[in-house]
């Protein structure tokens, strides 16, 4: 099963390396990992997409939580959440192909962000399925380069406290 874990971590040197090496040494496979600062400059949010059964997920979560610089971990898969993946894709696109490529981009609510004589860069964001579908449609034109952020996600509604309830 696919899970999305959302972790708030202290924005300190080495935190990403620590988490990455813990995941690697314990043999957890991560499909995607996105990191960025939050509204608090001393906290970052990491969003992980992990495949595995409940036991694996339970361990990933607890091992993440055990890292001193990890402030809070949530498995948001079962909650009402919004997820996005941002992609920049450079497609082979001579002038005569532009109308059809641009039409596809528009249908996906993508934006053309650069035009060269023979290629264009298109920005697309959305769910994983949508981004994957767009990639498939661009294949026949020739994909020159591609970059994705990986999944980011937020739960809808009131935010949770930064520090998890731990009893006394």
């Amino acid at each position, binding site marked *: 099963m696919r899970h999305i874990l959302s972790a708030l971590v202290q924005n300190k040197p080495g935190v990403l*390396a620590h988490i990455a090496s813990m995941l690697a040494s314990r043999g957890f496979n991560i499909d995607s990992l996105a990191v960025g600062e939050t509204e608090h400059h001393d906290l970052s949010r990491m969003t992980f997409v992990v495949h595995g059964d409940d*036991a694996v997920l339970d*361990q990933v979560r607890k091992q993440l*939580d055990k*890292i*001193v610089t990890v*402030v809070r971990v949530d498995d948001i898969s079962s909650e009402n959440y919004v997820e996005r993946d941002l992609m920049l894709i450079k497609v082979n696109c001579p002038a005569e192909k532009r109308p059809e490529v641009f039409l596809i981009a528009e249908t996906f609510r993508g934006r053309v962000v650069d035009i060269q004589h023979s290629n264009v860069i298109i920005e697309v964001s959305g769910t994983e399925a949508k981004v994957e579908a767009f990639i498939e449609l661009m294949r026949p034109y020739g994909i020159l380069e591609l970059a994705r952020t990986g999944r980011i996600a937020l739960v809808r509604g009131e935010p949770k406290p930064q520090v998890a309830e731990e*009893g*006394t």
Partner: protein
Amino acid sequence: MNTATPATPSSAYPLSGADILVQALVRQGVEVVFAYPGGASMPIHQALTRVADRIRTVLPRHEQGGGFMAHGYARTTGKAGVCITTSGPGATNLVTCLADAKMDSIPVIAITGQVATSVLGNDAFQETPIVEICRGITKHHYLVTRVEEITRVVKEAFYIATTGRPGPIIIDICKDVQTARHVPDWDPPMDLPGYRPFRRARRQELEPILHALRHSKKPFIYAGGGITHANAAAELREFAELTGIPVGLTLHGLGNFPADHYLCLHMLGMHGTVYANYAINDADLLLAFGVRFDDRVTGKLSEFAKHGRIVHIDIDKSEIHKNKYAHIPVHGDIKWALADLNAMLREEANADLIAGGRYTEWWRQIDAWRASDPLRIPERDDAILPQFAIRRLWELLHERHWLERTIITTGVGQHQMWAAQFFHFNKPRTWITSGGLGTMGFGLPAALGAKIARPDHLVIDIDGDGSFLMNIQELATAYTEKIPVKILLLNNQHLGMVVQWEDRFFSGNRAHTYLGAGDEHPPYPDFVTIAQGFGIPARTISDKNDLDEALIELIETPGSFLLNVLVPHQEHVLPMIPSGMTVRDIIKA
């Protein structure tokens, strides 16, 4: 003794980073550090001379020795053990000590010098990215690049190392930070929003345990090192005595429940007692207190304790369900949990659970196992069997009423398992051994650290010739620092445990497990001459008739002493449940 003037503790004028560091250690209550100097840590050593009246600096002869002395100190006291080295090789020599401390949950704080911030990352002389190396083998780590951070880092390091599930911390301090001057804030706020080490399980979480007890006919307590770290031996004993439930202990659980108590079934697992392993296999309720379901206890996981429900209480919630699913998981401090359970048991509504005779049938079965399969030592008069030497040492100390003030350390291998089997421990923190990592060479330096922590105790390193040779240089520390420790060396000229596995699983083919110099030579090396070279009296025996008198000499000679006991290498540690197998595969003799 150093006569330098101590630095003023409440300084309103700038101090060097190194002085701030050692003053911060003083404020943490550090009384001893194990420190080997080098280029990148010299300022710290200079500063240590200025606090010599408050912190003893012990100079080991190898950084790994210093690291394991810190282990000995920490494991004996529960306080943080501090070791200090320079950068590069000094730091990498501590890696094994930190990995060991992580596995056994020991609060070791390693302070390493690092090259100056201006050249950090440039492959400078003796530069090693030690924090990168140690991330996975420490509880937390710090690279200190600003002098302002020192007091906060030290405060956080001691807090993290000694709370929750204890563990090692590395503090890597750049050399220019050690010499930079600053007016410190001695009590800065900690910045640990994600670290919440304390948890007391709620009553609602504990009640299912009583419910499970009420439905159990064959309960079993499986208690480990978590009891030591939580200082919960008294609560464990009360719980066991109130309920009358048998107690099996892990290697690190030894001492947390008195070995001479009727309820004690001694050690579990690969080289545990037959009766403890039969009982845990047969139990219908497993009460796992401060344990991690290590493979040396469980053998084949799917077969382990499969007849019963499992209660698992641990302060580290990542241990719960990690190896074995727990039907009643409780995340919390075991001392509090047991104290609360004991209080609940004393309530009138639970009087049935503490009524005697609940488990009469169960105890009849256990007593039958105890009678049919006790630990055995083969009868031999032509040689000193290593297990026999250990048992005689225990008996002689017992007769002299010295057990209360005896601490045993070990290396790793057969001698370690025999010590666990035949030296009976009644108190926590008197049995100091490298369990999870299994580091050979642990025994001697750990004994030195333990002796510093408990100068009024008799500290004996029960060691093997392979392990002892790995940190033998610390005999120099014992002599020069006047730290009197005893070494009972069970010398079989082989790597005994590997030999045992060769015999069992590799048709006895010897693959580099012989440590001697050939049949035509006397036993090699000549440990007595080596010890004497270090200034330590020593003696070799091989005749069983000399054993008692030699052991008494070991115990009673003032100062350090090495007793080199020549033992046969053909002995196997038994019983044995081979790796990855089950109690049905137990080899009894």
